[in-house]
Each structure stands twice: as C-alpha cells, then as structure tokens.
C-alpha cells in the first residue's frame, strides 16, 4: 500500500502515524508539506493529530485553508482514501470534506485516556479488519472532540451508516452527540475520527486493537 502523510506546522502525532504505517504496511509513507499543491498517486492520505498552527483559531481552521488541503480535496473527490485523526478530523471538517463540527469537550478540559469504541460500520475500507459491532479499546487525547451536527445531518449520517466508530460502554469522553467518535463521507472514502488507533498497535502500547484498521487498509490496497 502506498500512503502519504500530510505535514503541517504544529501537528505532533505525525511521527506516531508514520511509525504505525511503516510497521504495518512495511513501507514508510511519503510526506507532503503545507505548501505542496500536488500529492503523488497514493492509495491513502493521512492527516495526523496535533495542534496545526497552534489551533489558535478554531481547531483545524487555518490548516483547512492551506494549499495542500486543496490537493487533498481533489484526491478525495477522485476516490482516494483519506483519513484524518484528531486534529486531522478537525481539519477535514473545516475543509468541508466531512459534515458537522467538533466543539470543546463537555468537561472543558483536555482528556487523555483509554476508551471503548464500537465499530458501528465494519463495511468500510477503513474498518473491514473489524467485525460488525466489535468493541475495541482505543486511546483518546484531545481538547476539542465533542462532535455535533444538526438534526438533519445527524439523521443522514445515522441512516446511511456513515457513523463508523461510537464511544461504547459509557466511555464517551467529550460529550459527542450520539457517542460519535468517527464518521465517513457519503462516498465512504474519507474517514475522520478523534481516537488514536496509531497509539495501540503493538504490545509496547499495552494492546493491539488499533492494528486492524491499518491491516484492513493494507489488505484492501495491497
């Protein structure tokens, strides 16, 4: 599988993501910089977590307007798989590639802990490594992960199976509506999620529940 990781100043889980992609696909991903206007042909583009541009405006708002994001949007429109994790999810929302918004956590505090996720739709390119409704462990680490969408959007997301990950067993850490932790685009090729599967892929992490996401992607595009 060929992948590319988008690098923006202030992102800080890029190294975690690059390590996960390298370990699981066997190939280090390409990297693209904020000012790049073209992205080479790859099977997967990942926008990792962090605090792009300090998140000094709304989280992801500045990043969404950088040249590289136009290139990401073009690729997404042509069906390339795009995954945004944490700040990456926020950026995808700000770029209009996914619907809804991520607000400040209900606790108003940054939260780093392990939660349970239900794989609400195992029939996507990103979740085919899981079984339907499987409950997995996954860490979160964010200040603004409180997903919200208006009633109409929400009904559509739920109705079309676009909700892919849901906080399970009462572990919603941020107040997200319908316990939403991750969603896909209508076309199914753009995923945004708040939790960090890249931080739970080997025994050193204390678990490997995040691995199947990457393995599913590798298997699909191998």
């Amino acid at each position: 599988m060929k992948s590319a990781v988008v690098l923006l100043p202030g992102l800080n889980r890029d190294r975690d993501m690059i390590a996960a992609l390298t370990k699981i696909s066997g190939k280090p991903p390409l990297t693209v910089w904020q000012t790049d206007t073209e992205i080479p042909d790859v099977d997967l583009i990942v926008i990792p977590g962090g605090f792009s541009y300090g998140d000094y405006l709304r989280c992801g708002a500045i990043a969404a307007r950088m040249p590289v994001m136009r290139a990401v949007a073009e690729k997404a429109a042509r069906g390339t798989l795009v995954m945004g994790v944490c700040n990456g999810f926020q950026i995808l929302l700000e770029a209009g590639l996914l619907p809804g918004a991520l607000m400040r956590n209900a606790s108003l505090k940054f939260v780093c802990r392990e939660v349970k996720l239900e794989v609400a739709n195992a029939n996507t390119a990103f979740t085919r490594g899981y079984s339907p409704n499987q409950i997995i462990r996954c860490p979160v680490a964010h200040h603004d992960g409180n997903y919200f969408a208006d009633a109409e959007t929400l009904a559509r997301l739920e109705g079309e199976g676009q909700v892919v990950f849901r906080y399970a067993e009462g572990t919603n850490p941020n107040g997200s509506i319908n316990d939403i932790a991750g969603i896909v685009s209508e076309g199914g090729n753009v995923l945004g999620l708040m939790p960090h599967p890249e931080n739970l892929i080997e025994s050193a992490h204390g678990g490997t529940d995040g691995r199947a996401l990457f393995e599913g992607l590798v298997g699909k595009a191998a």
Partner: protein
Amino acid sequence: MNIRNDFPITPELVASHGLKPDEYQRILDLIEREPTFTELGIFSAMWNEHCSYKSSKKWLRTLPTKGPRIIQGPGENAGVVDIGDGDCVVFKMESHNHPSYIEPYQGAATGVGGILRDVFTMGARPVAAMNALRFGEPDHPKTRHLVAGVVAGIGGYGNSFGVPTVGGEVNFDARYNGNCLVNAFAAGIAKTDAIFYSKAEGVGLPVVYLGAKTGRDGVGGATMASAEFDEKIEEKRPTVQVGDPFTEKCLLEACLELMASGAVIAIQDMGAAGLTCSAVEMGAKGDLGIELDLDKVPVREERMTAYEMMLSESQERMLMVLRPEKEAEAEAIFRKWGLDFAIVGRTTDDLRFRVLHQGKEVANLPIKDLGDQAPEYDRPWVEPKAPAPLADDDVPEADTADALLALLASPDLSSRHWVWEQYDTLIQGNSLQIPGGDAGVVRVDGHPAKALAFSSDVTPRYCEADPFEGGKQAVAECWRNLTATGAEPLAVTDNLNFGNPERPEIMGQFVKAIQGIGDACRALDFPIVSGNVSLYNETNGQAILPTPTIGGVGLIDDWSHMARIRFAAEGETILILGAPKSLGSHLGQSVYMREIHGRTDGPPPPVDLVHERKIGDYVRGLIRKGVATAVHDCSDGGLAVALAEMAMASGIGAKIDLPAGEDVTRALFGEDQGRYVVTVALDPDSDECKALLEEQEKLGIPASIIGRTGGRELKLGQARAISIEDMKAAHEGWFPGYMGAEIG
C-alpha cells in the same frame, strides 16, 4: 528618535534592581565608572540569585557530578548521560515557582516551555516530561485556582508541543499558601556524537537570533524570581512571560534540522534574562567578546528601549553562532518553519560585551566578569534542631480499615488521575508506564528492548523535620522508584526550592539538605548532572517547606522484563523485602500520624544507604531475572497504602498475615525506608519458593512472606476487609470532588 539610556543611577534605582549597596560598589570597582541604565539592567540580570547562584554555589560544588556514563554535568543547558549504542539521555528540572503563583496558566506553561528548550538546545528530541507541584492547603482560597491554572498550563503547553508527561508529584501543605512550587522536568534523546553546547568558537562569526520576536513580556522576570513576595504581588503580573507552544514546536523542528545540517557552532536558548544571559554565556564560555546590534533584533512591539530588549524574557527564542558558509541554508530552514532569523551581532576577540542601539553604544562591559565576578556568598547558617523522637509506647491507635480508607482519600495520597488525564501521556507511542506507578517508563525509539524510567521525588515534611535525612530520603526514594521498575538508576537533576537564604535557619536547611543529597548520591552512584536553585520562596516572612526535588533517570535494558505496581495475577505470593521483623516501625513524620491523629512531631525515618543499595540491587536482579511479577516500594502511608495501590491498580485483592506479637499500626503505617513489596508466581510451599528464601537469607536480604494475591478485597491481618471498589471510591474521589468535577 533616541530612547533615553541616561537615567541617573540613584540608590533607589539600584535597590529596585535587587542589587545590594555592596554589590553596586562591586560594579563600580569593576568597570571604574557609573554604569548606564542598560548596563545596570544587565548586571541585575546576571547577578541576581536565579542566574548567579550566589548563595548556593559554595554548597553546590560539594555535590558529586561525575560517573562513567556522565558526558555532561552541571553548567550546560542540561545534563547528558550515555545510555549505550551511541545514544544519550539529556535532562534537567527547573522551577517556575514565582511566575506560576502570579499567573498560574502562563507561569506553568512557560516553565514547561523553558525546560523543553533546555533539552532540545543540546540537540535532543524531548521524549518525556514530569512536573513536581506543591500547593497550599486545600482550603486556602487561592489553592483551587492555582491547581486548575497550573495543571491546565502544563497540559496546554506540553500537549501542544507533543511530549508525553509520564510522571510527577502533587502535594498540599499550608506552608505553600503564599508560594506554590512548579518544578518542570524534561528529558530528550540525542546521539552522543551530536550534542550541542553554548560555547562560542571563532572570531568575527555571525551571532544569529532565531525563533519568536522580542516583546516586553517578562522584563525583569529573573530578578522578580529572586525576591520574596508580599501583598503587592499582583503588581508583578507583567513580569510573567506568555507561552506559545506552536512556535516552540516549530523551533524544535527547525533547530534539529539546522543541527543536522552542520551549521551550528554554538547554541543557547534565551531563558531567564533573555538576550543578556544567552549572549554573555556564549561569549564568556568561549573566551570571546560579543557585539550585539539591537536594531537588528526582531521585535513585536514598537519603541522598545535597549534596556527592555536586553531584559525581555519573551519565550521561544534562541541565539546561535553559525558557520558563515551555511548562513543561507540555515535561514531557509527557519523561514520554512515560519520563524524569525536575523544576524544580530558577531563574536569579537576583545572580551567585551558591547550593545549598540540606534547608532549608540548603550553597554560596554567586560564579558567574563559579568559571570565570573558575580558576588558569591558564604551565608551564615545554623544547624537545624533535631526533633525529639516519639516515645516507644507512643503509638496512637485507630481502626486499621478506617485509617487506610482515610489515607487513600487524603489530599496527599489520593489518586492524581484528575491531574494527569489532562496531560497527553501517550504521544510519541513509546509510553510503557504512565503516571500512577512508581516511575514513568518510555522506550527508546528505534531500539528493540531499551527503555528509560523517570521519577520525581521529595518528602518536604521530612526535610522540614530534618533537612539532612530528608535530603538523603529524597534521593533514596527516587532511586528506589526507578529500581522498582527494574531500571538501573543513572543520574539525577535536582531542583532545590527553599526560602530566604539571608536567614541563617533557612540557609541551615539548605546546607544540611545538600549534605544529605550528596551523601545519598555518592552511596548510590547516582550523580547530579543538572539542576536549578529557587530561593526566596517566602511570603511575608513565611517560608515554604524545604523542598529539594530530585528528578531521576534510569535505564531498563529489556522492557519485556520490567515491573509494574499492579498485582499480576491471583494466587501469587507476596513478600516484603528490606523490612524489619516487625515489617514496619517508624511513625514519626508519617502520613498516618498527620492525617489520622493530627500530629507532625518526631524525626523522619532514617535512611540507611548501605541497606538501601543492597536491597535495591537485589530487587532489580529479581525483576531482570523475571522472578518478580509486581513490585512497589513502601513510602508515604507505609505498607498498607503500598498494598492498597497494588490492589487498586490491578483489581486483584490480597490477604495479608501480620507477624504475631508485633504492633499492627507500626507494621502497616510505619514509613521505614528501603522496603519493597514484591510478588512472585510461586507457591509458598514450593521448592522454588524455599530456594528463593534461602538465597535471600544467604545474601542477608531481610525477607518475609506476608500473604497472597486473590479475591476482590484487601484483608490486612485481623482488620476488616475492604473491597477494591471502596478503596477506589475513596482514592479516586478526593481530587475531582475537591476541584468540583465529576469522577470520570
């Protein structure tokens, strides 16, 4: 327009710069004329306690700083220790006490920023952070505000920068009501052949300013941090800097990229006393003069004076001496990261520190003397009075189960979950043990088996009762916490927080604590490689508890043989190693006496350093051989609290048999030092277990089997069994309840 630099130097102006009359006389003698206003500012920045260590230097020299693994001891931005395979660990701890009390969020945030910068200035990528925090009593009207602000500030900076926070401490005591302590630790990993230093080399080379622009924030911060507080403290708010973790993250990446390019000759971050301290240090260390042209300095405010620019403590700035042929390449790297890059001066051969502003020379001082000739004091000190020991029969009773639950729910022993969940503990994907155990553990990126352990320790109430034993204990406990994970303790950074050194009784605490720390570091081969002294932690004459925080780093060869505090399985045998026959004996200064009986008398537990080393080395061996399945040292709250923590961490209970004829309170709540609870996956009646006990006897390691793991409750001797749920409710409940949050 020209900005004035000719203010008359009056005694009041000198005093407001924190300089004593005899110190000012020393300046006059040194330069043989009256200093300009800017020069006075430069002297005050270089000669304050924070930068010059004038009260502490004499005693700091007595500390052991060498060892076979030590690459760089104190005197640089951070200490450097060899960890093999061409890698080294670079670390330091530094206080940001005064600013954090005035403005908790920014004070703590910039404390984290400053210590991270110290580490990456040396060429290391930061891999772990810790924070040792001390606050006033919970009921004090300011405490909640300080806790909330400091924790948010640490998280706000560290999380955005992208370093995992893997350990720390939080304590409460009325003696910190007027001065909280924020001691920030950071460690990074570098290649031993790519460490960068502040010593400039070569005449006529460009001095380059990098990073964020200079503003008026933090002007005089270091001088502020060298004075006591009074009720006018709020007026000092403008001396606190404002942090920008985004710029710092960019600065990290740009610096590491620049270092890899081979352009950097010398580098120094701008911390306390900003441009002044960094320029003087680079020149003085390299036996070179420095000339600065302030018109070239990137500024974010208009009409800044030379004085303000020289004393600004704006964050996220660096000064470097670069190879001239690499200048363009260097500039391109900094532009890519959106950072300022400006040549602001050059190195000279005349050993003068010259500052130009708007075509005028505003300072011209002997560069070596600014550092070397700083006053040094042998301050008078008095031997602290040793507290009388408790009488042999002075053992106030309490219901064991009730007492344990009360201790678990006490401000000092309750779970710190509420705090560290606000820190990113997992970023970088290398965290093997996060806060809540004996030490934080981070694997060495790119190495299949190696990991580093980190712990921060001191027991201020012990130091107050007996600074010498307290100093020893701080080092021993840190060494023990690292050992309890299976790590070989490597070296220490010390952050010495005390009151006003001009008071002989405070100086006495300082001197004795240093002696204790030195003795322990020597006995445990645990040298000090970096550190920081924070004095004048007093408000209206009330000093803090003496708090010499010890930050230790240990090396784990193979993390697949690493110990954790949680019980590993049901039915395992529990041993206590290093304890007397009675299991525990010392109640003076114990948390039990303070929390349950309101007593703070008596001496702290003595530390037998020979015993400490022997037991620790043995326990480490058990872990590395894979014999020990769980390990936890006994510290605050004694054996009872240690067992409760092991049970709560695992969800597995235990049944403990106490030795017949011994006092239960002393056994369970005594705070005797040098003890470890260890579990083994052996039947107590098995031959292997007997062989283990025989081996321990032969080696002279005091050991007793005290019980077995299993069930969902903790049963201590004849006391009422307590369910893990009840312990957890007590333990987890206090902090969120206190901070007005829900348990989550």
